[in-house]
């Protein structure tokens, strides 16, 4: 496999680090929100912060699909297998996310629920084909990156007349989340912690293109640089962002131009438009209720919509008291500011969603840098 190590080269990293050091202005701070969990993971996995000047701060955004799914939706997923006796197919990361009453899919499975970890929607379809006597539900989560495969599965199920298959749709939309964060920025009184710009999503943008961010950039006057998930991408995009900030420019720039175009993947967009439509609103863990921020299945595919097929109760599940995931997901707090972090909340026993996925910022802090303290800072022992 090519192009793995090419984007992790130490020498190139040093060169970019020198350019960044030369570009940043002393006497001011730069708050850069990396939107995606993939960026957060790369920053911690490769120790990118160690190569950045002290006055450049990464603020970890909400772009971890597992982290933003609210508890009531996970309660519904558990209900699907426990009450409606379905085979629930889910991506692995979802298994450990805590739901109400200290339950999770992995605990439900241990108690007898039929929960299967799958790697793709195609696995879920195959399980449905092999179990014609059982209802099989795919627990669809994620941003625009994971939506097209779900759309494809819906189309295939309809074509095959696979009537025991359905989708529990929880797909959410990135631009709404960025808009929401910038809206709530107005409420941030302290100018020292205001965001200066965004590292924009990489895989999401490969589907939707760079164009959808243009409106937000024009409205909120914050620059966005679409950045790949490799550590060199993160550094190069940070340099581009710092240059924009210094120049007083506010543009959508594309560092990840080996994959992302302005228009995006038109075929995938068409497929999604054929199967999904906007929800009026959707609850996000951490960010709350946001209008037009998620997708639901179109009436033409109603027979494969688990929400229509099964009666699901209205769960009022709430986050664990004291859990700072909501503030962390909006960049208002860091994991170390949470009093549960590392005490009762660890990856082994997560209380909040940010501690579950390796893309969650709490899990990244814990796994890669918990000893550093402060500004995930400079006391690295390595």
């Amino acid at each position: 496999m090519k192009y793995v190590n090419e984007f992790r080269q130490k020498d190139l990293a040093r060169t970019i680090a020198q350019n960044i050091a030369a570009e940043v202005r002393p006497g001011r701070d730069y708050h850069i929100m990396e939107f995606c969990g993939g960026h957060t993971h790369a920053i911690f996995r490769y120790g990118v912060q160690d190569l950045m000047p002290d006055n450049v701060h990464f603020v970890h955004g909400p772009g971890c699909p597992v982290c933003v799914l609210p508890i009531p939706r996970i309660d519904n997923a558990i209900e699907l297998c426990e009450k409606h006796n379905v085979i629930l197919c889910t991506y692995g990361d979802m298994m450990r996310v805590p739901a109400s009453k200290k339950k999770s899919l992995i605990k439900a499975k241990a108690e007898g629920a039929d929960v299967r970890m799958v790697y793709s929607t195609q696995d879920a379809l195959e399980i449905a084909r092999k179990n014609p006597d059982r209802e099989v539900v795919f627990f669809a989560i994620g941003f625009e990156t994971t939506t097209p495969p779900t759309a494809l599965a819906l189309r295939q199920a309809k074509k095959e007349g696979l009537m025991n298959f359905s989708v529990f749709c929880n797909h959410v939309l990135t631009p709404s989340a960025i808009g929401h964060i910038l809206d709530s920025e107005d409420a941030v009184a302290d100018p020292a912690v205001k965001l200066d710009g965004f590292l924009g999503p990489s895989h999401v943008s490969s589907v939707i293109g760079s164009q959808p961010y243009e409106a937000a950039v024009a409205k909120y006057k914050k620059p966005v640089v679409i950045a790949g998930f490799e550590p060199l991408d993160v550094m190069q995009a940070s340099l581009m962002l710092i240059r924009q900030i210094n120049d007083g420019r506010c543009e959508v720039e594309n560092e990840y131009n080996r994959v992302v175009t302005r228009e995006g993947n038109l075929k995938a967009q068409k497929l999604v438009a054929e199967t999904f439509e906007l929800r009026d609103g959707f609850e996000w863990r951490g960010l709350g209720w946001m209008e037009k921020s998620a997708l639901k299945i179109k009436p033409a595919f109603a027979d494969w919509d688990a929400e229509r097929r099964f009666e699901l109760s209205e769960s009022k599940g709430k986050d664990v008291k004291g859990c700072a995931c909501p503030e962390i997901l909006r960049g208002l707090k860091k994991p170390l500011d949470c009093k549960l972090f590392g005490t009762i909340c660890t990856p082994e026993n997560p209380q909040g969603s940010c501690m579950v996925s390796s893309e969650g910022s709490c899990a990244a802090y814990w796994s890669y840098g918990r000893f550093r303290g402060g500004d995930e800072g400079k006391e690295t022992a390595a």
Partner: protein
Amino acid sequence: MNQITKRFQNKLNIASGRVDMTHGAGGRAMNDLIEQLFHKHLHNDYLDQKNDQAILPAPAAHERLVISTDSHVVSPVFFPGGDIGSLSVHGTVNDVAMSGARPLYLSAGFILEEGFPLADLEKIVISMAKAARDAGVAIVTGDTKVVEKGKGDGVFISTTGVGVVPNDLDISGANAKAGDAVLVNGTIGDHGVAIMSHRENLAFETEIVSDSAALNGLIADMVAAVPDIHVLRDPTRGGLASTLNEIAQQSQVGIKLREDDIPVRADVQAACEFLGLDALYVANEGKVIVICPQEQADAALKVMRAHPLGKEAAQIGVVHDDKDHFVTMETVFGGGRIVDWLNGEQLPRIC
């Protein structure tokens, strides 16, 4: 009459027969299985005594006994580079050898699921016999149980190993000291990735084979050449990262790694990339972490590289004082990170 006698002897139909409940019931059918399959392939002087136990000679005065036990539940039971039979020998032989000991005997307990093909069972037993022969150990006693269909996953094998170690050899996970070198005998992650490439819902094409191997030969060479080895441990489940954390805790030290120096096959790295895994946490079955004084590291590497199982041996880090007992790493990118224990099971990331 002849036909009746033949039926009475009940020759096992290995080609197309399957394990049934009578094979574990203690009667003639069980005896047939033991005689025609287990004894046939595993025989040695101890096993041939056909008692419920093996009586073994006492160790020499200058030696102590070492014992270790391990259960094997791998799925699929046949994988590139090995099977549950060879693995059940290698795993326990290696656990015994990690004390610097010479493994001598194994016991083997089989839990068979009703319906398991006898032909597969024979393949597994033949593989065990070969692995034991190659490692120079004898399987001296055993046990077979059969569970109903659905209550097992084909076959589980528990093995216990016994060996001897000289009185003056002190190799332990608690012995790592600041200034020591951390070595490994070759590429990491091969076994876990080979297994995953054959999982039913994940099959992908690759030439990666498991590194499953008995390390006692390599260990014997090392102990002879570098008597001052502090720690030997095989990084199996949880991978290199978890095993180094165990050692750091046990020895109350910190360990610093250099990612550039850790040997990983390119195809294993590629598989980890698309599965969202970190090779540091992927299982190995033929690797050993060696910790010794830095001044003896070159000698140790020389011995390792001269052995077929250590050709790609490398120094991957150093031991240092750290009150938090962290394992840290300078990444390929030049930054730093900690290398934590494996949390839960490595689950694939979705995007």
